């Protein structure tokens, strides 16, 4: 019987101790914020949405190669000989048209591995975190400065140039004397 009442006494006392803690919390300031109306200021390092300053991009593919989930899709076209694409803000000469620079934010894992290898520091993670959309295709960010037609035109030009080059090479190969075939050892008999 004594044990029984001791248990009840203990339960009441420990609950009261706990209630004391909650009671004290009634008079402390709330730690929550009214989110859509009040927003936290994120630290500058915060890794949220990726941003590419395309004017500074030299199309080196380093970020695409560093990405563990392959969410960066880049296409480049070589600039013509007389074309001058200018320089990046870090003083590097741009030699490639970046006709496509897409980042699929649905795939992105926000690891910031792409940020570090960039030689011109043009790809960065920004503290912007509110980018939900109604359509998941809106989450594919297009950063290229070229419109679709311009990109197509550049790619077409590139294709023609390459074809011409290949044709020229083929013609050269035709003109050159054939190396004597007897030099090469044939497949093992």
């Amino acid at each position, binding site marked *: 019987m004594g044990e029984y009442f001791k248990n009840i006494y203990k339960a009441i006392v420990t609950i009261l101790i706990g209630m004391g*803690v*909650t009671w004290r919390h009634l008079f402390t300031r709330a730690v929550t914020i009214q989110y859509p109306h009040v927003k936290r200021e994120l630290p500058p390092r915060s*890794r949220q949405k990726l941003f590419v300053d395309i004017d500074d991009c030299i199309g080196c593919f380093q970020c695409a190669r*560093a990405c563990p989930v392959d969410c960066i899709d880049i296409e480049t076209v070589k600039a013509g000989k007389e074309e001058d694409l200018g320089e990046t803000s870090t003083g590097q000469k741009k030699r490639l048209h970046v006709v496509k620079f897409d980042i699929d934010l649905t795939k992105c894992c926000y690891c910031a*591995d792409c940020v570090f290898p960039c030689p011109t520091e043009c790809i960065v993670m920004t503290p912007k975190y509110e980018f939900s959309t109604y359509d998941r295709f809106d989450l594919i960010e297009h950063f290229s400065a070229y419109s679709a037609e311009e990109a197509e035109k550049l790619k077409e030009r590139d294709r023609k140039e390459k074809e011409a080059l290949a044709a020229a090479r083929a013609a050269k190969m035709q003109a050159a004397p054939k190396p004597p075939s007897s030099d090469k050892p044939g497949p093992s008999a």
Partner: protein
Amino acid sequence: MKKDNLPAAQFEVEVPDTLKTEEMTLNMGPQHPSTHGVLRVVLKTDGEIIKSAEPVIGYLHRCFEKHAENVTWHQVIPFTDRLDYIASMNNNLGYVIGLERMMNLQVNERAEYLRVIVSELNRIASHLIALGTYGLDIGAFTPFLYVFRDRERILDLFEEICGARLLYNYIWVGGVAYDAPQGWRDKVLQFIDYFVPKIKEYNDILTYNKIFIDRTAKVGVIPADVAINYGLSGPSLRGSGVEFDLRKDDPYSIYDRFDFNVCTGKGQMGTVGDTWDRYWVRVAEMYESAKIVRQAAEQLPEGDAKETVPRNIKVPAGEYYMRTETPRGELGYYIISDGGKTPNRVKVRSPAYCNLSVLPAIAPGVMVADMVAIIGSLDIVLGEVDR
């Protein structure tokens, strides 16, 4: 293993012969709030008492090991984050130290200290979740809110140092990704000053509550030999009174420089190795982690936090098993390299998976409601169980 090593059934029910009884199979989970994720436990019950329990896993399998074979050494680090997603820093640490030992790489002092600070802070954050959700499982809601308030402060510290709140990708081969910003060290010390008195608050509200003790003490007892036989590690093993902590027994990084104790279960409220003991080990470990963080933050030297290593690191051919103490126990990375750009194999010995394996051994004879307490006390993270 002998059968009589197992704990005896707690309840014996006498059934009259005239009563028709049958076993019932009950699926607990995968959508169940107290299985801590997508764990399914197939229970065979006799009324309210469990005859057998069989965990069914694999609902969260994400092919970590296959992914690791297809990406470069460095690109594996973001994937290790996603194993045990509430203690990512500790996951990074094990993999990275394994690689560094294979490469024979020395890391700067400052980087080592930062690594210890962040992983111990992460251990506190993880134990806070364990505490809060355990209370939630038992039926105490308030402590859950309090621990999340304090965990938020740790996440804020992490966000400041590496930009992410949960999946950090912070510890890199050769150091850490970012050096600590100005004033971060003082904020860590402030946090420790703030946090240590708060642990008493959790004790007042939950640990020594009579109802909580009645629900957890003498329940789900894992004797020390059973714990060792099933390969338990971390707080679940230490709760059974086995003093085994890799930070002390096989020191890695710079853990041998700090003064801290290994906490074990003593059976204060009932039997050694009951769920209360495992819970208590976590509470006591938070004190120890706070001690380590304080020492490390006070000794934090100046210097570079990053060693210059090439972007595409090459790991010499060979194999290495690196084990570290995460909040859940011994996390082992078995790394095989063929000298190439990508790992040949990265096998993970996940502590939560091994800890879960003891469930069928201790479940028979307990009530269904106690099952919740047992699963909660093992503190599993399904992301790590399934990988």
